[in-house]
């Protein structure tokens, strides 16, 4: 991704420290007048080397490390990791644990989507909506806190089950919270589909056609807003999603408005699921025993994070530490779609287009090999290490 520079063009750099983004990323927009003609991104500011770090920790310690890949979708990371480890160990968490895992996943999706709604509105200059949605988000943060004891990084999972249980009092609080949020969400849906000024910033902006989305590999709500019918919860149900199924939400327009609508409609799905889950929570144990040494083998586990498909590859050599942990997170898959849809829009639309995919840096700053046709290079671990040492000398 080299920036094209011609004398009359102007490059606007944004970041890495940037008031509107809470995480560091660096972008360069080439503009001609107001219109963006090229966009490049530089990521990697928060690359920490967690995959490698995971190899030096035990399986149990890794659970807590992996939960901190991202603070917004912490539960799904721990979930994908523990599902993988359980598959390797040949055990399965009891039904009640599975239902609680799904419950926390959905609560997390609600918090994440509301967070996104606020941030995206803020990027467009609609600070009232930002404040409103974050105020309402506190409802679900409270619920997460009552059931897990922490507002972020709930550590609900343990290998072989969950460590939290839901009692009647908490269930009631959850029901009440969902009623309140549902009412508020109705209002938001109205705002994003009817408000003139809002539509002026979102309708037909950042359009990504189905073909583009398919070609660029867009996933999650970003892809679904362009009609890509893909959702791990539906395609290959994990935890309790086969007993409590979710309906796929898609849209065909592929513009920013569609991305708002898809995410808000997904909120309704989540409210419905959460209610169903607390009403029909299966009874029983919360954990099964998982051996300390995990049998040799390889496994892939997939879950649907709020931003799209999250994939874990785990390899065990039979010891108490993993041999390889590979994480593939949805944000990275969606980046290329931004850089393509940005071209041809006004510079003023950039913040919203950027926010439109719900970007998250902490999870996508991993080492990637870009397979360009001509000058692609492959490095093994030693080379890479040497390269790093040279680079930072």
């Amino acid at each position: 991704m080299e920036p094209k520079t011609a004398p009359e063009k102007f490059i606007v750099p944004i970041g890495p420290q940037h008031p509107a983004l809470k995480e560091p990323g660096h972008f360069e927009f080439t503009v001609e007048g107001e219109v963006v003609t090229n966009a490049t991104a530089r990521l990697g500011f928060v690359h920490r080397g967690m995959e490698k770090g995971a190899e030096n920790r035990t399986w149990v310690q890794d659970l807590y490390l992996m939960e901190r890949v991202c603070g917004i979708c912490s539960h799904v990371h721990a979930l994908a990791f523990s599902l993988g480890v359980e598959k390797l160990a040949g055990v399965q968490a009891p039904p009640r644990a599975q239902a609680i895992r799904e419950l926390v996943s959905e609560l997390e999706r609600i918090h994440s989507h509301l967070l996104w709604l606020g941030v995206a509105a803020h990027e467009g200059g609609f600070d009232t909506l930002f404040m409103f949605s974050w105020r309402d988000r506190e409802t679900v943060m409270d619920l997460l806190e009552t059931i897990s004891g922490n507002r972020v990084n709930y550590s609900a999972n343990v290998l072989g089950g969950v460590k939290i249980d839901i009692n009647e009092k908490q269930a009631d609080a959850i029901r009440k919270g969902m009623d309140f949020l549902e009412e508020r969400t109705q209002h938001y849906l109205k705002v994003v589909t009817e408000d003139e000024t809002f539509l002026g910033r979102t309708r037909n902006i950042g359009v990504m056609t189905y073909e583009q989305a398919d070609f660029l590999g867009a996933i999650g709500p970003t892809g679904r807003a362009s009609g890509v019918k893909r959702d791990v919860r539906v395609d290959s149900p994990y935890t309790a999603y086969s007993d409590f199924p979710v309906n796929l939400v898609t849209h065909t327009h592929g513009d920013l408005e569609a991305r708002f609508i898809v995410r808000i409609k997904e909120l309704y799905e989540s409210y419905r699921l959460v209610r169903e889950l607390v009403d029909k929570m299966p009874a029983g144990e919360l954990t099964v025993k998982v051996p300390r040494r995990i049998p040799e083998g390889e496994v892939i586990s997939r879950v649907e994070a709020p931003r799209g498909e999250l994939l874990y590859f785990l390899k065990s050599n039979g010891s108490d530490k993993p041999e390889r942990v590979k994480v593939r997170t949805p944000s990275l898959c969606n980046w290329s779609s931004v850089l393509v849809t940005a071209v041809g829009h006004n510079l003023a639309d950039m913040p919203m287009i950027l926010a439109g995919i719900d970007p998250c840096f902490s999870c996508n700053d991993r080492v990637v090999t870009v397979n360009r046709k001509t000058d692609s290079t492959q490095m093994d671990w030693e080379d890479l290490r040497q390269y790093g040492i040279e680079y930072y000398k």
Partner: protein
Amino acid sequence: MENLMQGVMEKVKTWARINSPWAIHYNSGSCNGCDIEILATLTPRYDVERFGIKLQGSPRHADVLICTGPVTLQSRDRLVRIYEQMPEPKFVVAVGSCGISGGVFQGCYNVVGDISEVIPVNVYIPGCPPRPEAIIHGVVELLKSLQP
């Protein structure tokens, strides 16, 4: 006479600083958890703006640098640069276990360490992540310490 004027000016400046500190936020490699809690302090439930605390964009206008996360090799230079761009006197608040000790990321190959290894820190706020109340408390403690 000049001395007197200067003294008065200093007093006014300190008064202004304590009553309305402007803060800037930099994430040097955190997991996001701390950052969303910092953002939450700006929103209606906690609303630090009622105390005059304002989060804003440019380091050149900031009194307080709020840092989150361990420092990665990539962002180390940026962090130092932002710190150097801030006008004197400047204060640093490290939020979260990672900023204090490296937290769970200790020993990862791209992590330099905690924030105090790179820039001097005035206030540490523990927690993973600290609650918004704790973050507000930390900033208030910092302001208290500035009281003459």
